[in-house]
């Protein structure tokens, strides 16, 4: 099933995505329902503009990136196993350390 989702970037994560803070995408037809686990490599291969190692590490996001599903921490939603629903809003936030 294809699945339309909104992807948002903040905290500097947008710098890896051509400085775009918001992307409306349709995840293409897939034999299995999309999860965050299957979405991450798709995002890396299709949307990321540079330095994939600054986005993913192994099969998950690199340390220091927080993932939100519809304004909630993905940890509350099942992390990698969360099944994406149409029109979900997924946010990748790079943690800030400056002061």
């Amino acid at each position: 099933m294809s699945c339309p989702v909104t992807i948002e970037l903040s905290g500097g994560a947008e710098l890896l995505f051509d400085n775009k803070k918001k992307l409306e995408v349709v995840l293409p037809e897939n034999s299995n329902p999309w999860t965050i686990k299957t979405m991450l490599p798709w995002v890396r291969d299709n949307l990321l503009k540079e330095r994939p190692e600054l986005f993913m590490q192994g099969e998950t996001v690199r340390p220091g990136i927080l993932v939100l599903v519809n304004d909630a921490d993905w940890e509350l939603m099942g992390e990698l196993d969360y099944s994406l629903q149409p029109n979900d809003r997924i946010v990748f936030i790079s943690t800030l350390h400056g002061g």
Partner: protein
Amino acid sequence: CLEKSDNLSNEQIGRYSRQLILPEIGVKGQLSLSSKSVLIVGAGGLGCPSAVYLAAAGVGRIGIVDYDEVELNNLHRQILHTEKRVGTPKSSSVASSCTQLNSLVECIPYHLQLDSTNALRLIKQYDVVLDATDNVATRYLLNDACILANKPLVSGSALRFEGQLTVYNYEGGPCYRCLYPKPPPPETVTNCSDGGVLGVIPGIIGCMQALEAIKICAGIDPSFSQKLLLFDGLQGSFRSIKIRGRQPTCPVCGDNPSITELIDYEQFCGARANDKVN
């Protein structure tokens, strides 16, 4: 630590009259504020606004930790310093400015780099800690020290046009390690020197840190325990995010903690605890 008085002095009543009439503060809240102490780690873009509003509100004692001296390029965001104080310790500059505003508040400057040998001893003397630092290693150090000493940690950060704020270790809430068990790869970390920051962004986040600390000191629950505030100053957007609770598996605040004393945080993070060039 501080003795709690039963009455406000006439000077206190006059000075704090506009906040005493708030039912949520009142005499009880003001007495509570003046019996509390707050440690601010970092006398920079976040530490300046938070220190001055904590002093204005009448927190009893404010400690300010910073190893650094005032530089001209700090003044676009570090608003308690002055041109005349360039070259002098930031901690005493902030303490002076706060004392000029409110001499009833005891302001203690600590001109030192917080590290594993001194953090616990210092933090144990305070009721609330503000993370107003600028690097990953010190953020893990402060977090672990606040867990070991059981102090709430009001954490702020800012870069470019963005800011983030949350309160850690407040009444069973999560800690920094619950959220970020692994440190970020050093090459992904951008500080204000490299990435830049608009000065008023840490101004807004530092004020929010002061607000959360004032509420805790006055006996009001903070709003950002287990919640993360994301601010984007370019878009003018504030977003409040519900984050995970305390993690039973957390190495420092979990059920079976493996970290029971402070470690080497520069080694853990693979990065220096200051943004000075090596």
